[in-house]
């Protein structure tokens, strides 16, 4: 009995530690994969459940100030075991400015370069394509 308990404790501790490390690693890998000519500003780890139905897809929202005459790069990376593909939509209040999914052919872009001309508070909407369960990270960086 004791051995079983110790084994379960060990497994739980190991899983917890790996989870945190995996997240850190995922953020670092994604941020540093973007390459030169950018400066990291912010990251958002996104973990969302599968959508109950297609009309009610879970969304993770983050507010961010963007400044005029600055070009931002929004990069999305998926965790290795993520079922869904991370997508981003950029909103200025209730108006959608852009989305990483092409309306024309459904193609998902892993990065969006946004030349901002209006200083203000914007909202980033992160979700997984077709409401699949998933995990990923969104990185916001400055393009030099």
């Amino acid at each position, binding site marked *: 009995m004791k051995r079983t308990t110790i084994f379960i404790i060990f497994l739980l501790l190991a899983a917890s530690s790996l989870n945190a490390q995996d997240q850190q690693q995922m953020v670092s890998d994604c941020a540093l994969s973007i390459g030169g000519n950018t400066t990291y500003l912010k990251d958002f780890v996104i973990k969302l459940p599968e959508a109950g139905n297609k009309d009610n897809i879970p969304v993770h929202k983050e507010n961010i100030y963007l400044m005029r005459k600055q070009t931002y790069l929004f990069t999305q990376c998926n965790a290795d075991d993520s079922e869904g593909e991370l997508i981003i939509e950029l909103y200025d209040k209730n108006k959608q400015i852009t989305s990483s999914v*092409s309306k024309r052919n459904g193609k998902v872009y892993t990065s969006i370069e*946004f030349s901002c001309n209006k*200083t203000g508070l914007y909202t980033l909407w992160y979700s997984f394509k077709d409401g699949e369960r998933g995990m990923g990270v969104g990185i916001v960086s400055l393009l030099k």
Partner: protein
Amino acid sequence: MMKKVLAITQVLLILVLISSCRNQGDKGSEFVFPESDSIPVKESEKLSREAIDDIVQNIGSPVEMAALLMGLEVPFISEHLASVEQAENLSTNHQKALRLGIYGADLGYLNIYQKTGTAVETLSTINKLADGLRVGQYFNFETLKNLALNKSNIDSLLFLSVRSYNQMDEYLRKNDRGYLSALMITGVWLEAQYLACQVVKDYPHIDLKNRIGEQKIIINDLLMLLRPYNESSDEYAELYRDIEMLKREYSDVDITYTPGEPETVEKDGRLIVVQREESSVEFSDEVLKGIIIKTEEIRNKIVSL
């Protein structure tokens, strides 16, 4: 049967323990005493504070203003940095959190300009302040110091230093220490504003002047962030009053908007979006002078404590 119940109880206890440990950082294994100077949160305030946190969590960026200065090809001026002397003698968490923010913006300025050798002293001071506020687990001093000394990987240095600030801020907010997070954010914002104000005196570039003017939008949210705590102590009330006075200097800054639809193209597999809606800022040199003087006054008061 009894043994099974005991085993399940043990597993549940471990799960609770693990989930509570998740909020600790890399070095965060020691017992944490209750925060002596944290502000008790009334239920009525809690919701509005959470809403405010959502709105304003990224007000202060330690690198964005420095990146603008670099982009405008303005030379690095070390005299603009806050002195790290006496920083170890700060007595209250209020002072430490404000300074942590100020040095964060200075570190961003140093790193963006690749003055990494000079950055080591600032890194060391930040490390001590972060430990003093018990958020040192998010500041990997040894790694940052090595990256700074080796000048080997500026991208990693910038990433790790900015991310450390993001994590410290997130940890403070999520652990009911928004009081300190607000001060840290104010420190970062104020120092970036101070740098811009010092530089614009010698390099009156229109983009820099406009960036200072655009802070009118942000200063309102900054005040909203500080407001729930402004009666918590005399030093908090004083800071709030100072930022309010700075806001008054912005009253004659006009920001207007021109509508437009964004243009999107695909290039090399990347989506490129150009916003056509524009904001523009207008204000006189006299107003700018008032903003500069008030910014200097507030920032210098903080760094002279």
